[in-house]
């Protein structure tokens, strides 16, 4: 709790935190939605924003405000699945490679380096095309998780490498603490903030890819996500027909989410190490 209070003193972390709280609250509104998001034509089509339809309606006959609550919820769920599952892989790989060193380190780092060099986006597209029929929120999350761990495993490994050289490791090993206990009890507390900050970055990356895949038509387009909302808006030429309320809703919501997540992670990294913020290369 003290750590959290310290973090909130940083304006970036505070802004990121409150924007994300708002987004989660917005997503929770979907449980009270008066319309079913999978049905079309529940409201008149192409209405401008008004007192009755706060953000207007789209060409599928859906209320954009309520659709957006579902979209944010689903996108966040995809990001959480992708983030949490890939954290398990990244932490395992990073800790094993960092702590054991030697051959296992070389093999694991070879695998993660290869994943950084190869254009993963194309691999994901290839896989997504083939599983398009069975693509739902969970499979998409898992698909992104398989590819999203390499960079973070490297970061965790380098932290474990430096922890391994510390005095307390020798003390622990010499006093007979087992490897598992050493890693889980002694290293985990040090690594938790780093793991958390990579989790946030990874979630942003997952949402970015979800949007891209959706716009390419590679995910189930009947499930409302930020990406599929944008897909339908583009598909119905909402830009040319100047239906700004429709196009801009998913764009502005996703920009808010990306900036908020980024500021959260920058807040945590600066707290960890003000001199050298450790960050992911980009959101893809």
């Amino acid at each position, binding site marked *: 709790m003290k750590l959290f209070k310290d973090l909130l003193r940083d304006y970036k972390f505070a802004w990121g935190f409150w924007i994300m709280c708002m987004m989660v609250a917005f997503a929770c509104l979907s449980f009270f939605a008066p319309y079913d998001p999978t049905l079309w034509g529940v409201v008149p089509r192409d209405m401008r924003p008004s007192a009755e339809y706060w953000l207007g309606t789209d060409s599928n006959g859906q209320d954009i405000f309520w659709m957006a609550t579902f979209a944010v919820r689903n996108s966040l769920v995809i990001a959480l699945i992708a983030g949490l599952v890939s954290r398990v892989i990244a932490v395992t790989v990073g800790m094993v490679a960092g702590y054991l060193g030697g051959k296992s380190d070389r093999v694991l780092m070879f695998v993660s380096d290869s994943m950084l*060099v190869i*254009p993963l986006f*194309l*691999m994901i597209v290839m896989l997504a095309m083939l599983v398009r029929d069975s693509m739902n929120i969970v499979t998409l999350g898992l698909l992104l998780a398989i590819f999203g761990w390499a960079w973070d495993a490297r970061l965790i490994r380098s932290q474990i490498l430096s922890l391994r050289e510390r005095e307390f490791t020798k003390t622990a090993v010499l006093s007979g603490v087992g490897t598992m206990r050493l890693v889980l009890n002694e290293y985990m507390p040090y690594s938790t903030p780093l793991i958390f900050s990579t989790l946030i970055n990874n979630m942003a990356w997952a949402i970015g890819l979800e949007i*891209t895949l959706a716009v*390419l038509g*590679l995910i189930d387009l009947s499930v409302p996500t930020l990406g599929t909302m944008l897909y339908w808006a583009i598909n119905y030429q909402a830009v040319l027909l100047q239906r700004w309320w429709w196009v801009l809703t998913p764009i502005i919501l996703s920009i808010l989410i990306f900036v908020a997540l980024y500021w959260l992670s920058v807040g945590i990294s600066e707290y960890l190490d003000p001199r050298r913020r450790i960050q992911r*290369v980009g959101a893809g």
Partner: protein
Amino acid sequence: MFIRRYLIPRLIQYVLVIFLGITVVFIIPRMLPNDPVMRTIQELRARGSSLEPGSMDKIIADLTEMYGLGGSPLEQYGAFWQRLFRGDFGVSFFQFPTPVGKLIAIALPWTAGLLLTTTTLAWVIGNIAGAFAGYYANKGWSRSLDAVVMVIRPLPYYIFAFTLLLLFAYFIRWFPVSGGSGIGRQPTFTLPYIQDVLWHSFLPALSILILGMAVWFQTMKLVVQSVVGESYVQYAKLGGVKESTIVTRYVIRNAMLPQITGLALSLGLIFSGALITEIVFSYPGLGSLLFNSIITGDYNLIMGITIFSIVALTTITLIIDLLYPLFDPRIRYT
């Protein structure tokens, strides 16, 4: 020493990455329950083309041959490599019978030109701006630049490119909405044509450039901020060396090194980003080719693009890695 300690392991890694990457590309379509041949036929049917029962067997046989699906998995794998070594990626299904290799060759100059200019410019400008912003970290302009970067940096390529498209092609109609040159223009080496291409490439280039610059700016700024505290910089300052000399000669040169490694590591992301940006602007490079192949379900074309990209990217990364000792006198592997 250099050859044994560095070059050979690095070359082995290079070959292994390509080998594994292409093997994965080979396995992906085969490990899934649905048969790509039947899938293609279903898609043809969904598109409304009527197939006569007699021609069905012929089409199935042709498709099996085309996807390289005849024989045991091991035989398929062997045949797959043989074809690759001949530079044969098969034929595109929806632009039948154009070879995939030819389609890639047409699209490649567009992507290569776009990527080469933007990546180099982004790296150079971003690093120089970042170095000065890091050296003068307390000045007002440095802080405001940092604030702008803090908002742009987290945006994914698709969202950023689309926002630029909305702003500069729809709201303010400064630039064309799509394409690589005016419709129906033949590529010639004349000034109007080159102007036309540059005008069409401006927005896609700008969006890749700005996103790239944001990344380099930020990392460079942090590196420089930590280098500035080092004693050799203090010493140069106290010795009365001009500040511009300190920044350009001492600080930037030392801080540049991690940025070269960073460039090698992030090429994959930059490349993917460029493909996505091309899709947004319908720029006629590999990205749009990929988009068309997704829309039409042209699996051979996607495989071709992926394999080509794996080889190209790993090769460029290898070259950057091998050139690294030229920039860093401490690593000469002697």
